Structures are given as C-alpha cells and as structure tokens.
C-alpha cells in the first residue's frame, strides 16, 4: 500500500466558519461554484453562494439557488436491492456486494477481463472515480472504464492531448476578467455556465470586453453578443481555419512563439488554406455573412487579450477534436496562451468531469494523466501493487454499449448516470442494458429509465449534501464537496462500495481505505509518483494532508507539486508542453462534414442541448417547482419557415423521427433557429415524459480521436401530431403517469403536475378522474360538446387533493392561476369554484353571503351603501342595488340589516 503518512495539517487556520453553514460545491455544471449550505434540521437546507469561493464569489445561478428544493428523500433509493425470481427485492449490503463480486469474478474467469465494464459519471467525486478506476484497471484487468464525460468533453481532452501532449486547460477564470475579446463557440454560457457568464458580463461592463458568439442557434448568450455568427453545424473548423489564414495574411502571427514552442505550423497553415482559402469560401461553407466573418477576424487580430471558450457545440461532434485543434491553432499561432486574459478555454459541462480526467477514469487513459505505454503501465502497477493491470485502451462509451448489445460485455456496473436516456440511440442502449447477464447500478434515485433496464443489483448511493470528497472545475480548481446531511437509509459512498467489491475479490490490502481522505491522499500521491515535471497533473503536494487538513481544504488549482505551492497556475506562456519534444503541435483539421447527411426522408437536422433551469435527466432539478416553471414541457424549436411548410404552429405537438427513434414534443417557433434545423433539449426521459427521449433519435457517429458521439447533427423528419385534447392534472401525491397519449410530469409546489394531450375527450377523462380519486369528495365541470372536463378532488380537510382540466387543443387549459391551490390548505367555496374555472373570479367575487338572490346582490355592497348613506332605507337600497325589488323575499333581511347598523357600536 502506498497510502502516504499524513503530514501536519497545513491550512486549517485560514478557514472562517460562517455560522453553522457548511462550505461545499455545487453539483451542477463545471463552473464549480462554492455553496454555503445551512441544514434546517428537518432534512432540508438553506442555500447561498459562498462569497469566498474564487469560482463564483458568492453568486449562484437558478439551478444552484434551488438546490435546497432537491435534497428531499421522496425519490431516493435507500436500501440495496437484488433481483430474486425476477423481482427486485430488498437485500443486505453484504449480499448485494457479494453478488457483484461473484458476477464480475465469474464473468472474467469465463470470458476474460474485457467482458466486464464500469460506466461512470461526471457527477461522481474524484475519490469515487479513483476507486472505480483502480478496481477495473489494476485488479479486474480491464480498461473498460468509461463515463458520461465521454458525451461531454472527450473531444476537448483529445484536442488538448493532440496539441499540448497532455489534457491541460491552460487558462484560469480570471482570464475572463482581463480579456479584451471573448469568443464563445458552441456555448450557451448564459444558460449552461451562468455564473461564469455573469462574470464575463461584469468584465464587459467594467472594461468593455467584446463578446463574439459562434453558434447555430441565436441563444440567450448570442442575444448578448456584439457579434453573433450563426455557423452551419460542423463548420466551426472552417471558420477558425479561415481565421488562421487571415492572421497569416494580416501579419497577425507570433513568429517567435511559433518558432520557439511549436511544430507543424506550415502544414497547419497549408491545411487551413485548403479548407478556407478566402472569405467568400468561409462565408459559403459556414453560412455566415462575409462581412460578419471579416469583423470577427479583425477583432481577433486586433485583440491581444482574447479568450476562446468552447463547450458542447464544439465537443459533441464527429469532428470535435479537429474543431478544438482549429481553435487552439489560432491561439498557438498568436502566442496567446497561458498569459492573463488569453487562451483557449474548454468550459466543462459536469461538476467533476475534470476530476474524472485527473483520475484517468476514461477508457483511453490509464490513471493520473498517464496512458498505456509499457513504462506507464509498469509505474502504475508498482504504485498500486496491482496483479492484473490493463495494458491497452478499453472501450469508450458508444463502443462499450455496442459491445453490451453484441454480448461481448456481459457484466456492467453503472454508477451515477442514466445511460438509457443520455447515450445516442438511447432506445437501443436501453434494450441492450436490459439483456445483460449482469447489471449493477449505483444510484440515489429509485426510478429512472436506466433503473428500468432489469438490473440485478441496485446499490443506494449518497446524494449531494451527503457525499464527502473533492471535485475539480473547469479551471483545474479542486474544491471539497462536504456533507451537511446525514446519510439516509442505508446509502453509502460509491468509493466505499467499490472498495468493498475489491476486498471481496481478494484485494483487501489495495482497498483498505477507512476514509475518503485516505483515497484522496492515495490519488494525490499517484499524481506525484515518479512525476518530476513530466506530467501536467501533479497534486503530490496535497498527498500529505491529514484528515483534519483535508476536511478544511480550501479550493485550490493544480498543479500543487509541493505543499503550499502558490503562484500563477497558468500553463504554456513559455511553452513547456508535455509532448516528448516539449513543443506544441499544430494540427490539420480534416475537411468537416456532419457524419450523417440529410435526405428526403430525414430533411431536417436535429441539434440537442440544454435549458437554463434543468440539469441532465432531471432526477434532481426535476424535483424543484421553481425550476420547472421556466420551461415545463419538452419542446422542439423550429424556424418559422420550416414550421409553416409543415403546418406546425407554436404549441402544436410535433413528432421528430430519425431512423433510430421518435419523440413528440411541443413546437416552439423561433427565428433564432436556423432554417432546416430543429433544436430539442435532452433533459426529459421515460421517467417524466411519454415520448421525449431525444437521444433515442441521435445517430451518434463518433469522433475518430475522442470517441465522442455527434449529438447535435442528426437527420430527422418532423410532422405535426394532432391530438384533440390538451390539459393538466395537478395532484398532491405522486401518481403513476395518467392514461394519456402524451404527458409530461412537472414538479409543482405541494405536489406534482402532469401536462397531457390525448384524443380521448371529456367523458373518458371524467371516468379516469373517478377511477383515480373515487374515494375523495369531488367536484366537476363537464361540457361534452365543448370538449371540456374539469374535476377536483378534496381530502377530508377540504384541501385540494387533485385537479384535472382537459379542454380542446385550440383552447388548452392553463394551470398558472390554479397551481397555487395545492398548497392553499382547505379551500372555501369561492376557491373551489375558481379551481374548476381555472382562474379566480373578477372583482365581483368574494362579496360576502348572498342577500338578494334575484339580482345576485351580496352582503358587502349593501353594508357599504348603508354605511355611506346612514338614512338609506329599503327603497334606496332597491334603487341603487336593485336588491329586494323583485320578489321582495330579502326585504325583511334588508330591514334587519338597516336596523342593526343603525345601532351605535
């Protein structure tokens, strides 16, 4: 064992404890914002941004701010389960871990080590990743360890390694504060990295930083830009090849840097000239007006301090690595790298994709930024004391799932991710997972599309707020995620479960960790092991933190080669790349083209992405009513001309189909969408929508270098789906999906909401309501010919238990006005009527009890009149309000009222 001897604690004194709040890190995007969590003692927590965290300085986005709404236990998996006689049954940890160990041991024995695999997640902590990677690559003997990060930033990793010789993000967030020009490529940062975007906005306000956005869609981010270049899908590298050509021709290069620190420039420039000989060609191929391209090139050439940020629009492409290379080429050629305010900058999607990369938890890395050379394999073998080292790359995510489908992989352990939703051809993946000889899943929810794939063992994982360990953000900053809630039920850390399986396989010494700090120390020690500056990733200086020092570790950027190492954390200002000759490599991008072509059958191109207030497959953000309010239903954005040609109007349901699958989404018509392209968000799944598994359509051809699938350029066709009725169901309790052709589940205050569409009309829905809530007191409104049914159910205290509203599609019910009734307590008569009316009455409502039935005059206006006119008699009331002037039945009451009010109080 190589667990180092702890050194005395170093930085504990520098931590200021803010009340009882726990300092932790947001579990969403790669910005890695510090969070102050104040547990309320009832299972929830108050959430605030950590003013001392350098990534966010106290700010949080909508998702982060709503974290407190997502820590409930209602959807959690709280005990191990095993499939016994076909049914999932509660099991002991011992039995469940034993089953995994037995299955993996037997499968390896019978079919070899590459018949087993682990599929991990950028949501895992670094220590979880480390344990999984060690188990597979050192002890099971396979590099079949991949992760959903493959879908996210693998092309950036490959692009970095091609150019720099290492997976190094050269810059830091502070570069955004100090740049004169920021170029965002394939990044909707305003929605997907909001705190970083606000930081950029602050810099723009402070120092006039220019913003150029390159994206096929006019996103919220693009709306803010000085210059927006709506590039055709996949043509980013043409744009940047053109930029390289322009820089060469406009004397914008840095010949000294090129000469001193790089190789391959001439070939790269020749390649760029072949791709982008002139502005007209660039304009033609990218679909961007030549004048705008020229403005961009001129801005770039004139701005020494330029940061080019890129994200999924660059990465999720069959040419993603080339796109990254084309961008990096321009920064190398201008020497704009590693200095304040400049450099290429990959914005990572997940909270700990970076940590996974550091660990090496990917099939094409070994560990700690080492590959599969004999020397590296041997080094790691010695460090781990490992008997069964993997000696070559394993299967990357898409290939891994193909191997699952083809039966080459027989036993799989999935941790913290939902591949049945998120992988390309997701329907085929779901099918393949369901047929595995052995499938184990570690997760913290008990229902998801992946959990529906007939797993043999389920392990209850800790969730955010319970987990303890580290994560690394996009600027290489390692921050602690700290627990502020007790582990619920029998949930355990993933690293612990991994170690337990390792022990059961007979490797007790290698998996003897007693704490997460021990795992971290070993990981840090490996990064520094025989490093001597040969590897960029080195946190050997943290390997000596004792448990207390680990507990209070402040956010810090790597490298940390020695304890307490400070100073500039940027890379490559003076070269020093991690290639054998220490020079960066220019690359020559291949002529780009999306892998799949549109044709008559599939004439549109499907772009997929994210929305502001949801995260991944919504297992967490989907619990927040606040977050659901922004865009509650799965949708497809289309250009007005495409929509018109298909007879699709805003709000219609539209079926998108590729050769792999189909979805039915709500159409949103926007000219921010390029013609011929459709955009759909990825968040919805079979667990929260009827037909919205967007990745089921995705072709997923992979990048030849990174293995990352092309998720944003799938040929599809679109057609209008006519359903005669639309509506909603609000319910206080959790229900099975309603019997409807189309539905989406939405978190609402006090319960759940369901948006529905169906061809069955009012009478069918009346029956369904009765079947669902037959035991409750109910009220209803029925208009068969008008196509309307609305039904409410009440509990014994008169609180709204459920509210169903179905109407004709052309006049679809809206729940805005009645959603709040679920939390309103016992409802009065006016509220009960409003619930069915779908809205509150006008000002005439709530005027006290009715006095004159004939003219509908309630008590209040009568009182008001008599107060205003003390002499008013019955005749006067009649003359003004008409009360009592028809049948006269209320005249006695009016008289009593007048008499009663005449008596001084």
């Amino acid at each position: 064992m190589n667990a180092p001897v702890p050194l005395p604690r170093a930085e504990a004194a520098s931590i200021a404890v803010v009340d009882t709040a726990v300092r932790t890190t947001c579990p969403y995007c790669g910005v890695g914002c510090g969070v102050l969590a104040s547990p309320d003692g009832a299972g929830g927590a108050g959430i605030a941004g950590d003013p001392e965290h350098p990534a966010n300085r106290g700010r949080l986005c909508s998702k982060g701010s709503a974290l407190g709404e997502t820590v409930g236990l209602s959807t959690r998996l709280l005990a191990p389960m095993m499939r016994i006689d076909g049914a999932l049954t509660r099991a002991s940890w011992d039995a469940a871990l034993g089953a995994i160990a037995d299955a993996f041991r037997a499968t390896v024995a019978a079919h070899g080590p590459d018949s087993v695999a682990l599929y991990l997640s950028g949501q895992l902590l670094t220590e979880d990743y480390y344990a999984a990677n060690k188990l597979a690559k050192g002890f099971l003997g396979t590099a079949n360890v991949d992760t959903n990060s493959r879908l996210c930033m693998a092309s950036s990793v490959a692009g970095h390694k091609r150019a720099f010789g290492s997976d190094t993000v050269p810059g830091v967030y502070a570069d955004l504060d100090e740049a004169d020009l920021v170029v965002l490529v394939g990044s909707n940062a305003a929605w997907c990295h909001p705190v970083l975007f606000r930081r950029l906005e602050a810099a723009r306000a402070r120092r006039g930083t220019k913003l150029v956005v390159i994206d096929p869609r006019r996103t919220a981010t693009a709306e803010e830009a000085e210059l927006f270049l709506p590039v055709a899908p996949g043509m980013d590298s043409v744009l940047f090849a053109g930029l390289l050509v322009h820089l060469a021709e406009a004397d914008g290069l840095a010949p000294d840097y090129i000469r001193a620190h790089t190789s391959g420039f001439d070939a790269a420039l020749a390649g760029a000239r072949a791709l982008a000989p002139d502005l007209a060609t660039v304009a033609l191929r990218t679909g961007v007006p030549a004048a705008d391209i020229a403005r961009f090139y001129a801005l770039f050439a004139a701005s020494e301090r330029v940061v080019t940020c890129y994200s999924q629009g660059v990465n999720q492409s069959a040419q993603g690595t080339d796109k990254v290379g084309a961008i990096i080429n321009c920064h190398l050629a201008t020497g704009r790298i590693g200095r304040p305010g400049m450099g290429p900058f990959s914005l990572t999607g997940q909270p700990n994709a970076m940590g996974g990369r550091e660990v090496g938890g990917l099939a094409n890395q070994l560990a700690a930024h080492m590959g599969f050379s004999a020397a590296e394999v041997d080094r790691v073998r010695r460090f781990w004391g490992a008997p069964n080292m993997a000696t070559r790359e394993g299967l990357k995510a898409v290939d891994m799932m193909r191997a699952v489908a083809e039966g080459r992989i027989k036993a799989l352990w999935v941790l913290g991710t939902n591949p049945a939703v998120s992988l390309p051809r997701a329907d085929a993946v779901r099918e393949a997972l369901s047929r595995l000889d052995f499938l184990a899943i570690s997760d913290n929810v008990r229902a998801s599309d992946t959990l529906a794939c007939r797993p043999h063992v389920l392990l209850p994982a800790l969730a955010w707020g319970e987990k303890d360990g580290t994560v690394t953000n996009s600027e290489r900053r390692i921050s602690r995620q700290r627990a502020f809630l007790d582990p619920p039920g029998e949930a355990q850390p993933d690293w612990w479960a991994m170690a337990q399986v390792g022990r059961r396989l007979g490797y007790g010494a290698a998996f003897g960790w007693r704490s997460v700090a021990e795992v971290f120390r070993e990981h840090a020690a490996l990064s520094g092991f025989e490093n001597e500056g040969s590897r960029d990733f080195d946190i050997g200086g943290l390997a000596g933190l004792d448990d207390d020092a680990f507990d209070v570790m402040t956010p810090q950027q790597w490298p940390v080669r020695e304890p307490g190492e400070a100073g500039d954390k940027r890379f490559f200002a003076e070269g020093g790349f991690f290639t054998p000759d220490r020079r960066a490599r220019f690359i020559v991008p291949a002529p780009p083209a999306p892998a799949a072509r549109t044709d008559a059958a599939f004439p549109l191109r499907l772009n997929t992405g994210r929305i502001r207030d949801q995260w991944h497959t919504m297992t967490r953000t989907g619990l927040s009513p606040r977050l659901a309010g922004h865009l509650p239903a799965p949708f497809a954005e289309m250009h007005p001309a495409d929509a018109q040609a298909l007879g699709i109007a805003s709000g219609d349901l539209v079926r998108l189909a590729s050769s792999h699958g189909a979805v039915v989404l709500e159409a949103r018509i926007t000219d921010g969408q390029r013609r011929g392209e459709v955009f759909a968000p990825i968040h919805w799944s079979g667990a929260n929508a009827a037909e919205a598994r967007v990745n089921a359509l995705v072709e997923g051809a992979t990048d030849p270098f990174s293995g990352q699938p092309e998720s944003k350029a799938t040929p599809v066709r679109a057609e209008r789906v006519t359903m005669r009725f639309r509506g909603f169901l609000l319910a206080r309790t959790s229900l099975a999906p309603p019997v409807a052709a189309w539905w989406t589940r939405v978190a609402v205050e006090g319960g759940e909401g369901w948006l529905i569409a169906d061809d069955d009309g009012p009478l069918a829905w009346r029956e369904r309501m009765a079947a669902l809530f037959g035991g409750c007191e109910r009220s209803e409104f029925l208009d068969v010919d008008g196509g309307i049914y609305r039904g409410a159910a009440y509990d014994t205290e008169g609180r709204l238990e459920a509210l169903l509203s179905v109407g004709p599609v052309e006049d679809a019910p809206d729940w805005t006005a009645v959603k709040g009734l679920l939390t309103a307590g016992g409802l009065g008569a006016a509220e009960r009527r409003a619930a069915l009316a779908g809205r509150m009455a006008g000002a005439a409502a709530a005027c006290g009890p009715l006095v004159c039935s004939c003219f509908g005059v309630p008590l209040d206006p009568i009182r008001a009149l008599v107060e205003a006119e003390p002499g008013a008699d019955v005749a006067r009331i009649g003359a003004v309000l008409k009360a009592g002037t028809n049948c006269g039945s209320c005249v006695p009451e009016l008289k009593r009222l007048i008499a009663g009010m005449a008596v001084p109080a």
Partner: protein
Amino acid sequence: MSATSLREPVVIIGNGMAAAKFCEELTALAPERFALTVVGAEPHLAYNRVLLSSLLAGEVVADDLVLKDAGWWAARGIELKLGTAVTAVDTAAREVRLADGSVLGYGRLVLATGSSAIRLPLPGMELPGVMTFRDMADVGALLAAARPGLRAIVIGGGLLGLEAATGLAGAGADTAIIHLADRLMERQLDARAAGLLRQAVEARGIAVHLDAATQAIEGTGRVEGLRLADGRVLPADLVVVACGVKPNADLARAAGIGCGRGVRVDDHLATDAPGVFAIGECAEHRGQVYGLVEPAYEQARVLARRLAGTLSAYAGSVLATNLKVSGVHVFSAGDFLGGAGTQELVLADPGLGLYRRLVLRADGSATRLVGAVLFGDTADGLFYLDLMRSGRDIGAARAALAFGRAYLAPDLSTQSLPEAA
C-alpha cells in the same frame, strides 16, 4: 275627494302582488289621471305571498309581509275595499257587483284575481284536518294546528308543498311529503337538482315519498291517516294539499269574457271585453298561465304603461323559477331539461351543495343559452335569464359561463339586467 271625480275610474279586482305592483306603476306614471279602487276578498293589505312559507316557519312576522302600508295607499288616493268579494261583472254596463250589494262603475277593469289551490277529488278530502296552503288564512290555520309531535303529511312535492312542509317541520311537526312524480319539483328541476333538493329536505327531518299516489284520506270525524295507492297507510293528524293551483277565472267566465284555463288576454293584457284587462295568475297569455311573481310584475308594468299612454306590449315571459325552498336557493328557467339538439354545461360540487346545468342550443354560427337550472347558489340566475331572453351568442364564453358573471369578460358580464321592478 272632488278632485278625483274627474278622474277615470279604474277598478282592480284582487289585492295580491300583481294588483299592488300595477297600482304602484300606474300612480307613478300617471298620478292624477285615474281613480283607483282595489276590491279584495282577503281582509288584509296586499302582502308578499312568496313569504308565506317564511311566515309559517316563523322566520318573519305577518307585518313583514305587507307590501305597502295603509298610508301608502291613502297618499295615492287609492280606495281599498278589503274583505269584500266581487260577485259579478257586467261588461256591457261597465259595472262590478260586490258581495255587500254595492255596485262600482268602471272605465277600465283590471282582473287580478290570482289562483286557488286545487283540491283533489279523493275520498276523505272533506275531513277536518285537510288544509291548503295558499293564503294568510291558510297560514293562520296551519300555525294554529302545528305543534311538536303533530303528524303532518303534505301532498305535493312542488314549490308550495315543499314550503308548507318546511314550515310545518320548522314548527316541530313530524312531516312527510307525498309526491306523485319521481322527483321533487319536476317542473322546475332536473333529476340531479331534484335529488340534491331531496337530500336538503330530508336533512330537515322531512320524509319524502316519491312515485306515491294518494288514494284516500282516512279518518272518522277528522283526519287519521293517508292511504297510498300501494296500500300503505301513513298515520296523519294533518294533511296539506299542495298539488297546484288553478286560475280564478270563474268571475270572468260568468261575465262572458273569453277564458281558457285562465282569462284570455292579448299582448296588451286586454280581454275580449272592452276596457277589461287581466294580469297575474288569473291571466292566460298565448295559452300560457304563469304561476310566478315575475311574469305578474311584468304584466302589471306593461298594463300600467299602456293605460298611462305609453306604447307597451307583453310578449310572454321566459319561465323562470327563482326561489329559496327549504332553505336552499333554487333557480330554473327555460328549457332546462334540454334534449335533442341541445348541449349542456354541468357544474357540480356536491360537497358545497352546488349544482348548475346550463342548456345551450347551437344554430348556425351562434350558440345561445336556452335553459338553466341552478341549485345552491342562484346568484347568477337572472343574469342567465337575461342571456336567454337576449339570445346573445355565448359561444366565446362557454368555458366560463357556468361559473357565473364574475368569470366572464366585461362585454357579457356587464350586460344590462332586467329592468328594476
């Protein structure tokens, strides 16, 4: 009273709500033109008959029912001959003959004789303890008889019967309703509303027997029981017959004035005798006899305007029932049952005792409200009635219509209400 001698004499036979309304309207429109004489068989000032059940239930006192006090009549110079029946009308001589032998000449004669309770042609109907519920005298008799423990049976589950039963139960009597039809108030309510009403009635401790035909009143010397067609005998100390009313048209018929069920009138409320008019429950207009106060008031208004010289005509009333029965507000109007060619909106909240059914008819491009039944909350009744009368297209508002005026867009919700009485 010499000033009045120059005025045209108008005699009103009947001193009910229609007569009072007519006098009020006419004296307001033409205060100096007519000498009004009201001849009434009942000895009381005109009173609000709608409140008789409240009086019976003890919710109001007799004075509360008085529509206009004596001073009001005197101030308008209206002569009241109360407690005096008219025995004959001579349309040729333009005279009416009174029971006290006196004769009144008239320029115009207004028949507002109202209607009388029907008494069933059944054995035992003449026994002491068999009563009706129609006027102040009936209420007096019922109040005198009602006491805790009294076994009372009301024949008839219509409005009057229900009110009588409610009043008797309120006075402590052990009360049952016998009704021939399969539901209460079948002419005003649909099955669902009638079912809700039955629940409300039964909640007051009143037994309800539907599909129950009375075969005979039994008893020796006075009422002892009621025998049903199925042979059951229900013990009873008191039987109230409330099976409906018939127009009091005998006087007109004897005078040779054209009558059907009631006194036939045209759109000007004129009978076929010169200068003779009829309003209220005794009148038959276009074959229709109304048993409700609102048409009577409408007729009174039209006739007053006409006599005052304003062009005015009566085109019939959309039938509306708007009342509080057994403590529950009930409204119905128009074709509330619907049927072929109609559509319906139903709003029901049984927990609140609320039920509404609106009947629509769509023809061509317009959708119109043609009927309504409201139970529990009738605040929007006259609003709906007005929509029916106006025939306005409510197509755009149909999703909100059943929830009431407060939920409708201003163009519909501010639609003028029926003119004030």
